[in-house]
């Protein structure tokens, strides 16, 4: 398909603007003016509409078919959530920060406050900040809260390390590093969880925090989690919970109950907000009492007569992590999702997410190697090692699935499983969908033995075949010239 710039015609106008109702201002001094107008597209609105409509049709999406991308919780994005969020489009965030402004924003502020309360209940935390704009942003915020906590107790210099299991998501170590810590990585034991002995060795009083997700990225719930957090606490290290896998345990376990001190939640995963082709997300952070003083400002608080206020004194707070109140409309969707599903609904979400994952695991384990063969939670991780004997890699299976009309599972992660095939079905998929997917996965396994080239050549049904990534990295054409 042409680029929109390739469709531009000199002098063509798009959407028409109002005629000005004020006199023209004097021209600015030349040095303040750009020399020529930016070469933006010059297309008719109809051509614009066709361009982006046809681009959209070159995307696979959740609304077109099953999207079993492990660790991403691609659950159905209810349409009513979009309508609900749109209700808040006209409200300017600065209004709340003006003198007397909070009175004009009681709806928005109250919703954020309630959302925090509900997330605190779900996660077992004492207070939640809704400022963080995504999971990784929440992680960094959380680690900074931990740093502030240690600093407040005179341990800023003493606390140098953050411990993560090697199965952790890349954002965990990255966020800790950005927040100023060095990383200690603990290997995974044959039983699929962080090796507890090696963990004990790694723990010293110089460790500021341990970052884990439970269930972990193999989809396994760590039975030693309490022991681990006790050990961490005994070294005055705080426990950080990566909430990306929360979909498995709502109403079943509260991270706060098993020793976690800080948690981020991915509203765009567990709470049904769309992923938007990469974002926006939202990553509220919950903390235990001891960390409340350090939460980002402004804090939304409720006074005795139920009015919502902004608290913004220069306290021990780590300050702002985003310019305003976070990705508000994403939170509006998550809020609507939570009140719609309610207590029973969320419990059922976790139950059926786990049911679906185990169903796929059992149905496929005779065809694909299952490195950690035990009851999983919301996702399961296979390895294409059997297929590799025929020269077929996980990525080849992935591309084969694309030709069959499915989005592949996650195949680059977790790094600890060679040729990983990480499947997270989520609760919103019907049995018919799961069965159809399982059939295609089996077909892929059989074809890997009989006709491996079919997998190597896939995909053939897409607008483009496998793309030359080396060329892209070498030439670095990231902006169209001309």
């Amino acid at each position, binding site marked *: 398909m042409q680029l929109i710039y390739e469709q531009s015609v000199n002098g063509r106008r798009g959407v028409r603007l109002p005629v000005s109702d004020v006199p023209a201002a004097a021209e*600015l001094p030349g040095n303040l003016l750009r020399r020529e107008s930016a070469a933006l597209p010059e297309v008719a609105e109809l051509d614009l509409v066709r361009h982006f409509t046809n681009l959209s049709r*070159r995307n*696979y999406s959740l609304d077109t078919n099953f999207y079993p991308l492990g660790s991403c919780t691609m659950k159905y994005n209810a349409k009513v959530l979009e309508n609900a969020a749109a209700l808040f489009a006209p409200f300017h965030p600065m209004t709340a920060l003006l003198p007397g402004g909070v009175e004009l924003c009681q709806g928005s502020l109250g919703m954020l406050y309630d959302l925090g309360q509900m997330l605190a209940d779900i996660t077992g935390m004492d207070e939640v900040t809704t400022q963080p704009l995504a999971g990784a942003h929440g992680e960094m915020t959380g680690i900074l809260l931990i740093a502030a906590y240690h600093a407040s107790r005179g341990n800023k210099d003493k606390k140098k390390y953050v411990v993560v299991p090697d199965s952790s998501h*890349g954002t965990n170590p990255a966020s800790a590093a950005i927040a100023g810590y060095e990383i200690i990585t603990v290997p995974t034991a044959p039983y699929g969880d962080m090796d507890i002995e090696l963990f004990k060795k790694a723990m010293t009083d110089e460790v500021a925090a341990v970052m884990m997700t439970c269930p972990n990225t193999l989809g396994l719930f760590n039975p030693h989690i309490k022991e681990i957090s006790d050990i961490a606490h005994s070294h005055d290290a705080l426990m950080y919970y990566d909430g990306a896998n929360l979909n498995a345990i709502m109403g079943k376990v509260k991270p706060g109950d098993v020793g976690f001190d800080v948690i981020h939640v991915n509203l765009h995963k567990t709470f049904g907000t769309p992923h938007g*082709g*990469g974002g926006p997300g939202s990553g509220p952070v919950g903390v235990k009492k001891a960390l409340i003083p350090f939460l980002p400002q402004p804090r939304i608080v409720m006074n005795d007569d139920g009015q919502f206020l902004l608290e913004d004194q220069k306290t021990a707070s780590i300050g702002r992590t985003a310019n305003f109140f976070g990705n*508000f409309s994403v939170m509006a969707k998550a809020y609507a999702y939570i*009140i719609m599903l309610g207590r029973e609904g969320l419990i059922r979400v976790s139950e059926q997410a786990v049911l679906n994952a185990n169903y796929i695991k059992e149905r496929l384990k005779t065809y694909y190697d299952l490195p950690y063969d035990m009851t999983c939670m919301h996702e399961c991780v296979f390895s294409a090692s059997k297929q590799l004997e025929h020269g077929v890699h996980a990525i080849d299976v992935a591309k084969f699935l694309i030709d069959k009309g499915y989005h592949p599972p996650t195949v680059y992660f977790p790094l600890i499983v060679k040729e990983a095939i990480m499947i997270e079905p989520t609760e919103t998929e019907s049995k018919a969908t799961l069965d159809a997917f399982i059939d295609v996965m089996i077909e892929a396994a059989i074809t890997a033995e009989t006709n491996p080239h079919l997998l190597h050549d896939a995909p053939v049904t897409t607008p483009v075949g496998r*793309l030359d990534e080396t060329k892209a990295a070498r030439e670095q054409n*990231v902006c169209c010239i001309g």
Partner: protein
Amino acid sequence: MNDSHYCPHTPEEIQEMLSAIGVASVEELFSPIPSELRAKTFNLPPGLSEFETFDKMKSIAADNRGGMSGFVGGGFYDHIIPAAVDHLSGRAEFYTAYTPYQPECSQGTLQALFEYQTAICRLTGMDVSNASLYDGGTACAEAAMMALRITGRNKIIVDGCVNPFSRQVLKTYLYNLDVEVVEIAPLDGLLNREELAGMLDESVAAVLVQNPNFFGCVDDFSALAQQVHALDALLIASVYPISLGLLATPGEMGVDITVGDGQSLGNPLSFGGPSFGFIAARKAFIRNMPGRIIGETVDKQGRRGFVLTLQAREQHIKRHKATSNICSNQGLCALRGLIFLSAIGRQGLVDMARMNRDKAEYAKSQLVGIPGVTVLQSAATFNEFTIFLPKPADGVVAALLRKDIIAGVPLGQYYQGSENCLVVTVTEKRSRKEIDRLVKELEVAVCN
């Protein structure tokens, strides 16, 4: 169990699945969780129907006061959004897709983001752009960290005229690193160049400025760029995209890294988000860029396609050595930005920018007509400007709020001694009638 939202299985299906798994109950699947760790309480309210849920959301929105005529900016701006932006970004294939990890079935998102990167480069006059960051403030922080990596130095100088929220975000990001962040107090709403000169040395990684700045002042940083470069330091500029329909680009001024908030490009105010942050830089710095970057390439048959490229910068590969921790970005908002710019078009952006300035100048000329009201004269302005009132701005703003007018942003809480200063923003959406009413009511407020 049937009537629960978005959990489709019938009891019969659940039974079939349980027996396929070989367990007796769903509960059994949770056995890996030690019973003593199980949740004791779970106090959420019972669920609602879709209809009741939407009703409740409407009543929450109704608890906000709407229909205000706004003259506030401070980083978010009330601009026209062409109807096509909602309709096209609302295509399910865009908004229900994940990050385009499988390029063959994600060319829609990938090509659109490539076009977005191109738009940002052309708008700012820079060589390379990524596929979006979180927002304007975090983009400032990422740019600063990028400069620290590039220069290997550890001091960042920040012009006090930069948006105070962005400055706070930057400080939060750098808070636990041993990096020195120095702020320079504004001088007449402009960068205090003299004070800066005194601070510039080989320890400085970068200087961060904003154009137009928080006071609304438009500046020329060309000379500053040369000064900074002379010390092998970098100049980072935060810009307001709509203003680039008119104003000199960071590229023209010699800026090294350009950042900003993209809300004004087709994203609704939505009480502060989502918007998107953009970051663009000189080609030489591409490997130090944070976040995702889309690159052009071909498939075996030579067909053009687009992929996530230079991923060796990113957390999912480099983990703690990554250039940033960002994973999810603000892709859909960036897409809206692209659609907005494509809908308005090349000349349209020029016209829109000019109209913003025209309306602001008109408002300025009327406001200074009020006895006791004067305007900050130190520099030219775009669509925001600072006025001095004969009394504290807080009271005046509060008074006008009661008349459904958001008069502007009082500077008192951001700059000591500026209690009487008010920053007024006028976008193309404000009619002459609204402006005249602002002037009338403001006169009433200051003259009592």
